[in-house]
């Protein structure tokens, strides 16, 4: 496809600081750009973005940072972000654009894809370039992770994809890497938003399940809300995020942001510890790609053991304190 060149990643910022997902996208973007023999651009939409963070994008692999810095881009609002990104795409005609499969990326990218007539694939875990054609190959789990579909977009440009957070390591900075930072003003009307952000309510740890290296998740086997405090020493020893199966949420023992599974969050941690979770298909859909899975359940036939690497058949109220103690003895947190 003539006239389209270059690989873009959409960096995310919060309060002017570049977020981790951006560094994961640089890992993906650098590999794609090298295979295409094309430059890698990090697009940053934000306000008062920290200069060291911008330099850091170059140190971690970007050849160019394309920055629109405006007060009206301080927080993600779909109208202004989509108009801005759409404007940049129409002016610069990149071949590939990837963003994080986050609440921002998964809202912004489909809006922009219909604006610019681009193909878009959601929540990819593998990206590659097809030999010969040079098309972007986008592989994603579907039907709750039970199939992996590889998708391409032969006749439309740009090719767009969102990438599952934590599905690749962050790109590390290399001293002395060179690149340019281009500040560009978007057309003024592109920055207007019909939706207004009134306020923000921080919920802290519990919402960051999708970002955690270790997830400790509880199921119906926890028996009652008061028992949750019994898993806290383990959660703390591991610096883990606390998740739960649907049962626990529906009983009101934990709030919805903790829910893992088909109607909740999908997590992809290095370590997943399932405590008293039976392993319904809907739950497995949200966690079966974890690198290492440990399950504790008193029922030796529980389905969770079928997807686990290690399974303890026993009472979680005995196993959890014993394990927490063992970890503390070994000098864990």
């Amino acid at each position, binding site marked *: 496809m003539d006239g389209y060149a270059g690989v873009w990643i959409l960096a995310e910022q919060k309060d002017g600081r570049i977020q981790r997902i951006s560094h994961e996208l640089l890992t993906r973007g650098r590999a794609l750009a090298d295979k295409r023999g094309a430059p890698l651009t990090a697009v940053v939409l934000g306000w008062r973005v920290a200069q060291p963070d911008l330099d850091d994008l170059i140190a971690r692999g970007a050849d160019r940072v394309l920055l629109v810095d405006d007060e009206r881009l301080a927080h993600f609002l*779909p*109208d202004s972000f989509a108009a801005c990104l759409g404007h940049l795409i129409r002016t610069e005609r990149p071949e590939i654009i990837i963003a994080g499969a986050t*609440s921002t990326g*998964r*809202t912004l990218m*489909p*809006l*922009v*894809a*219909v604006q610019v*007539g*681009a*193909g878009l694939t*959601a*929540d990819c875990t593998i990206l590659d370039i097809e030999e010969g054609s040079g098309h972007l190959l986008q592989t994603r*789990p579907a039907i*709750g992770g*039970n*199939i992996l*579909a*590889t*998708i391409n*977009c*032969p*006749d439309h440009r740009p090719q767009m994809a969102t990438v599952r957070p934590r599905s690749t390591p962050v790109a590390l900075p290399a001293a002395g890497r060179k690149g340019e930072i281009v500040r560009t003003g978007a057309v003024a009307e592109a920055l207007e938003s019909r*939706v*207004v952000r009134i*306020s*923000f309510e921080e*919920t802290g740890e519990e*919402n*960051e399940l999708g970002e955690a*290296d*270790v997830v400790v998740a509880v199921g119906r086997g926890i028996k009652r809300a008061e028992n949750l405090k019994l898993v806290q020493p383990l959660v703390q020893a*591991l*610096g883990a995020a606390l998740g739960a199966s649907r049962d626990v949420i529906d009983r009101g023992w934990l709030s919805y942001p903790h829910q893992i599974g*088909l*109607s909740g969050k999908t997590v992809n941690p290095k*370590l997943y510890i399932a405590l008293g979770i039976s392993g*319904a*298909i809907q739950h497995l859909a949200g966690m*079966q790609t974890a*690198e*290492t*899975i*440990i399950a504790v359940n008193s029922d030796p036939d529980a*389905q969770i*053991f*079928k*997807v*686990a*690497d*290690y*399974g303890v058949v*026993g*009472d979680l109220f*005995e196993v959890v304190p*014993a*394990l927490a*103690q063992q970890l503390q003895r070994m000098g864990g947190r």
Partner: protein
Amino acid sequence: MKIIVPIKQVPETSAVRMDEATGTIVREGAKAIVNPLDLYAIETALMIKEAQGARVTALTMGPPSAINALKEAVAMGCDDALLLTDKRFAGADTWSTSYVLACAIRKLGIPDLVICGERATDGDTGQVGPGVAGWLGLPVLSYIAGVELPEGGRMRVRRMVEDGYEVLETPLPALLTVVKEVANPRLPTLRGKQRAKKLEIPVWKPEDIDAEVVNLGLKGSPTRVVKIHRPKVGRACEKLPAGDAAALDAASRKLAAVIVGTGVL
């Protein structure tokens, strides 16, 4: 007030099984249901209807059998429904699907609200809702976990993001995609079921929604599935007994060693 709720018929996930021998998932025989996440969209619309009066229309694109999903929406309390079915719609990706739904909504008349589920449990993309908003030029509010009633042509919502909740205000018309926290879906009532049985649901084709045929179905979709792979989801579980104190001690030592081995500490 007019509200349109686009829904999708999906295979029931709880009916799928794991093949013991191959460790892959078998979907055969799974029955079709309304996408569970769409029930929250229907409920949100019905809550608004009850509080201040609204005409709620359920809309779907799918095979002729998708009429059953619409009947369920009517049984829950939707006033009417519309089925988009045609061979030319088949094989659409999210870009083409959102185009077709947007054409139908435009033909029905832009309502005050379009309310979608956050994503469907089969495709799992979450792209159709924002896509429809893109085609129609409506403000999009995604991941909505709470709504206030519309007032004076404006509406406030609570949007769930990774580290908290945003409170947003939008003018109407607008499109929302909602998550589970927004409401508790009601069950269909007997009266609703009877109404659904009798209700004549119109069936529309591309000509009825002024859709350009080049944008339809597999041919009109920018993306192509080039390969499907069924990963082995089953793992060889090493079982550790913990029946007595000695076994418990051995098990916790072993687990601690495994945890250290993952490098997370």
